C-alpha cells in the first residue's frame, strides 16, 4: 500500500552497482509484496477465501451441522476436512493470506510513518519558480506595503486558517510564503492501518488466552454448576490456558421466567442465579439474553432455555431412581426431544449383579402444550397442557462400551442390532404430569413434573477491549483520512513597479496533493483574503 502522494525524487541516483543476486531477489520481492497492486490482490484473495466459511458449516460455530454434513456427503466431507473447509478461518491458507496482507501493510506503513514524521517536523518547501505552472494560480496583483510586511501578513492569515506557513527571503528582494495544510489526512490514514494491526494482535491474544464452555444448567439446588472443565458439556480452552486457570465460581439456577406473545413468539427471558465467587457468600443475580452476567474473568451468556422432565423409575425389585433429564427444544414452540437412560436398574438384590439385558431407556418428545389436533408438535412454548410422549426400550443401552454418546438420545446402533428392544409398541405412550406408566414387565415410570433449564455460554476473552479500542481508533483514522485534503499554497511578494515608493506584487499558486474538487474555491478565497487585508 504505497503512499498516495508523489515523492520528491532523490537528488542523485547512486552509481550502478553489481548487486548481490540473493539480495536483489529479496529486495524485489519485498517491493513487490509491499506494492499497492499486491495489497489489492491480497485483499481480494481474503474476500474470496472467506466465502467457503459461509457455504460450509464451521466446526467452531456449529459442530452438529458439520456432523450432519458428514452424513449427507460422506464422499466429499473428508476431502473438505483435509482442505480445512470446516475450519476456514483457522486454516493455514486463510492465515497465510491475512499474514501476507498484514506484512505488506507493515512494509508499507512503516516507511510512510517515517516520511510522515519527517514531514510533520519539516517546514513546507520553498515556492517553485513559476507559480503559473501549478494547478491553481492567481496572477500578480499590486498591493500597498513592503514585500516583507505583505508576506508576514499573508503568513499570519494562513496560520489563522490553520495552515503551517513559513516566510522566506528570496534573492531578488522578494519574499515567499509557503503553507501547507491537511497533515491529518495522512495521520488518520496511518492511525487506521496501525489500528488494524492492534485488532489483529488483540484477536490473536484473545484466541491464545481466551476460553469458553457451554453448559445446560437445570434449575434447583441439586443441579448447581461450578467452573471446572469436567462440569462443562463442551469447552474450548485457548492454547495458553490451563484447566487450572479457570476462575473459581459456582452457579445455581434459582428461577427462570419466559413470557410469550399469544402467537408463541417469545417476549422476554430472564434467568436468576445464585452466584458464589472465590468461595464467598452467595449472591442472587439476574441476567437475560442481551445482558450477560459479568463475573470476574468470565461472562455468562443466556443462549436458550428448555424443560427438563423429572422421571422416577421403579424397577421390578421395587427400587426407584429419579432422573432430571433436559429435553432439547427442536422448534420455536419448544417441542423438545430427549432420552432418559436407567442403566443401573433391575439389579437382583440376592446376587447384587446388574443384568445388562434389563437396562431401561426412554426416548421421545416433550410438548409443553399438546395441540388439540393431536399432531406431534407443541402448539405453544409455555407449559399450558404439557405431556411426554415416550417409547420404552429394554436391553443393553450400550453405555458400558466406553465410547461417549449423546445423553439426549439412545444409542441407535444398539436398537438396530436388537440389543435394545422397543417394549411399548409403535405409538409413543402419552404421559401427563403426575401420571404413572406401568410397563409390560410391571415396572413403573412416573412423570413427576419439569424443571426449567438454561443453556449458558461461559466465555472469557482477555483482549476484547484492545480489539474494541483498535476498531474505534481505526474508525477515527478512517474518517480523518477520508475527510482530509492535503494541499499546499505559495505566495510570492515582489517589490512593486513603484520602486522606492513601496508597493508589492503578490502572486499565488496552489497544489492539491490528492483529488480535491473544492480546492479551487478554497484557493480563490485564500487569494482574496490575502489581497484584501494586507496593509
Amino acid at each position, binding site marked *: 500500500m504505497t503512499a498516495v502522494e508523489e515523492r520528491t525524487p532523490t537528488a542523485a541516483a547512486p552509481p550502478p552497482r553489481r548487486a548481490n543476486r540473493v539480495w536483489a531477489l529479496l529486495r524485489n520481492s519485498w517491493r513487490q509484496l509491499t506494492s499497492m497492486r499486491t495489497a489489492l490482490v491480497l485483499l481480494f484473495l481474503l474476500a474470496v477465501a472467506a466465502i467457503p466459511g*459461509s457455504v460450509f458449516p464451521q466446526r467452531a460455530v456449529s459442530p452438529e451441522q458439520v456432523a450432519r454434513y458428514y452424513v449427507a456427503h460422506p464422499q466429499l466431507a473428508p476431502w473438505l476436512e483435509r482442505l480445512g473447509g470446516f475450519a476456514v478461518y483457522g486454516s493455514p491458507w486463510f492465515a497465510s493470506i491475512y499474514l501476507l496482507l498484514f506484512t505488506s501493510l507493515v512494509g508499507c506503513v512503516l516507511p510512510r510513518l517515517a516520511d510522515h514524521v519527517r514531514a510533520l517536523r519539516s517546514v513546507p518547501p520553498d515556492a517553485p519558480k513559476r507559480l503559473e505552472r501549478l494547478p491553481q494560480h492567481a496572477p500578480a496583483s499590486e498591493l500597498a506595503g513592503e514585500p516583507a510586511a505583505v508576506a508576514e501578513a499573508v503568513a499570519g492569515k494562513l496560520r489563522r486558517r490553520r495552515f503551517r506557513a513559513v516566510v522566506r527571503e528570496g534573492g531578488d528582494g522578494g519574499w515567499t510564503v509557503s503553507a501547507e495544510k491537511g497533515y491529518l489526512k495522512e495521520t488518520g490514514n496511518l492511525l487506521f492501518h496501525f489500528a488494524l494491526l492492534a485488532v489483529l494482535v488483540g484477536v490473536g491474544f484473545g484466541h491464545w488466552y481466551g476460553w469458553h464452555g457451554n453448559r445446560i444448567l437445570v434449575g434447583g439446588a441439586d443441579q448447581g454448576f461450578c467452573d471446572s472443565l469436567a462440569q462443562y458439556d463442551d469447552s474450548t480452552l485457548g492454547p495458553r490456558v490451563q484447566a487450572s486457570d479457570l476462575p473459581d465460581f459456582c452457579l445455581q439456577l434459582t428461577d427462570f421466567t419466559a413470557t410469550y406473545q399469544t402467537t408463541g413468539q417469545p417476549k422476554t427471558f430472564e434467568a436468576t442465579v445464585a452466584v458464589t465467587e472465590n468461595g464467598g457468600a452467595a449472591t442472587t443475580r439476574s441476567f437475560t439474553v442481551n445482558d450477560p452476567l459479568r463475573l470476574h474473568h468470565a461472562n455468562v451468556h443466556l443462549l436458550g432455555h428448555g424443560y427438563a422432565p423429572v422421571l422416577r423409575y421403579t424397577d421390578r425389585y421395587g427400587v426407584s431412581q429419579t432422573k432430571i433429564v433436559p429435553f432439547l427444544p427442536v422448534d420455536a414452540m419448544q417441542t423438545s426431544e430427549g432420552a432418559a437412560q436407567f442403566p443401573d436398574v433391575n439389579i437382583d438384590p440376592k446376587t447384587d449383579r446388574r443384568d445388562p439385558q434389563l437396562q431401561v431407556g426412554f426416548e421421545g418428545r416433550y410438548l409443553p402444550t399438546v395441540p388439540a389436533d393431536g399432531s406431534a408438535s407443541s402448539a405453544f412454548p409455555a407449559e399450558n397442557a404439557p405431556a411426554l410422549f415416550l417409547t420404552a426400550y429394554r436391553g443393553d443401552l450400550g453405555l458400558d462400551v466406553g465410547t461417549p454418546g449423546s445423553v439426549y438420545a439412545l444409542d441407535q446402533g444398539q436398537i438396530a442390532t436388537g440389543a435394545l428392544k422397543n417394549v411399548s409398541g409403535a405409538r409413543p405412550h402419552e404421559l401427563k404430569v403426575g401420571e404413572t406408566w406401568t410397563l409390560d414387565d410391571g415396572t413403573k415410570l412416573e412423570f413427576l413434573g419439569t424443571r426449567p433449564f438454561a443453556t449458558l455460554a461461559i466465555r472469557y476473552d482477555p483482549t476484547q477491549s484492545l480489539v474494541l479500542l483498535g476498531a474505534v481508533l481505526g474508525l477515527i483514522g478512517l474518517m480523518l483520512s477520508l475527510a482530509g485534503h492535503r494541499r499546499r499554497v505559495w505566495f510570492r511578494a515582489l517589490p512593486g513597479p513603484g520602486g522606492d515608493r513601496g508597493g508589492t506584487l503578490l502572486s499565488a499558486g496552489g497544489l492539491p496533493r490528492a*483529488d480535491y474538487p473544492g480546492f479551487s474555491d478554497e484557493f480563490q478565497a485564500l487569494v482574496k483574503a490575502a489581497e484584501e487585508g494586507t496593509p
Partner: protein
Amino acid sequence: MAGLSNNLMAFTVLAYLVAMVCYAGEYAFGDRGRIGKAASRPARQLVGAGAPVPDDAAAVPDDAVETPAGPRNGAGEWAGRIAVGFNVLGLLLHLGALATRGIAADRMPWGNMYEYILSATFVGSAVWVGVVLRRPAVRHLGLFATLGLVVLLGADGMVAYTPVGPLVPALHSYWFVIHVSTIILASGIFLVGAVPASMFLVRSGYDQGKRRFPYTLGKHVPEAVTLERLTFRMHAFAFPLFTFGALIAGPLWAEASWGRYWGWDPKEVWAFISWIVYAAYLHARSTPSVKRNVATWIALLGFATMLMNLFGVNLFFSGLHSYANAGGM
C-alpha cells in the same frame, strides 16, 4: 395501523413506478445529452437533439437549469420534473409506510427482512432525492434509481413479507437501534452509489467510442468525471458508517448477546467480505496507477456482495442472524 402500512407500501411502489415512467419519458424525449456541462456552467447551453435550437431559448436566464426551454425540450423537461415530484411523493408515502409499521409494532421497524429492506430502500430513495435536488444534472439516472427501488420493494413485498409482530428477546437491546440503523443507512447509500458507478462505466465506455448496447445509454448520462466523483463521495461517506455499524456496533452487541464479538456467522462473513471489497475500492481509487474504471468495477463488486448479504445469506444460509429471515423468526 398494520393494514394502513401495507396500503401505504403499495402506494409507495405505485408512486415510484409512476416516477420511473416519467424518468423514462424524460430519458426518451428529453434533451440532456450534455447535461454535465449544464451543471458545471451556470448558464445552460441548449443543445438540440439534432434540431436547431429555437431562438427564444437563448434568452433563458442563468438559473435555467430547471426551466423548461422551448417547445421541443418541454416534454422531456416536464416529464423529469413530474418524475421528481412523484419520487418525492413516493418518498413521503414510503416514510408513512415505515412510520405506521413502527407504530403498529410499537418499536423501530427494523425487526425482520421485510422491514429491513423497507428501511434500506427508504434511505436509498432519500439519498437519491437529496442528490437529484442538489444536482439536477444527474436527474436522468432517476430511471435506474427508481427501477432499483421498484424491484427491491416489489421483491420485498412478495418474498419477504412478514406480519407485524413484536421483537424476539434477542433483539431487546439498544444496540438494535444503533447497529441496524447505521447498517441500513450505509447499505442504502452503497446501493444508490452503485447507480452513478455503473453509469460512469457506461459513460466512459461511450466516450471511448463503444456503441454496443449498454454503452449507448451513455449518450444521455452526465459527464464521466461528475459521475465518478459522485460515486466516490457516496462510498467514502457510507464506508465509515458501515465500518461503525458492522464492525463496531455489531460486535459490541454480539459480545453482549452471544458472548463473542465475532463468530463468522454467514451474515458476519459477508459483511466482512463487503468491507474488504469496499476497502479495496477506496485503495484503488486513491492510487494513481489504478485506472478509475477498474476502481469503479470494484465498487460494483462491493454492491454485488451487499446484495448477496441482503438476500442470499437470508435465503440460502441459516445463521444467528436468522431473525432477519423472510417470515420472521
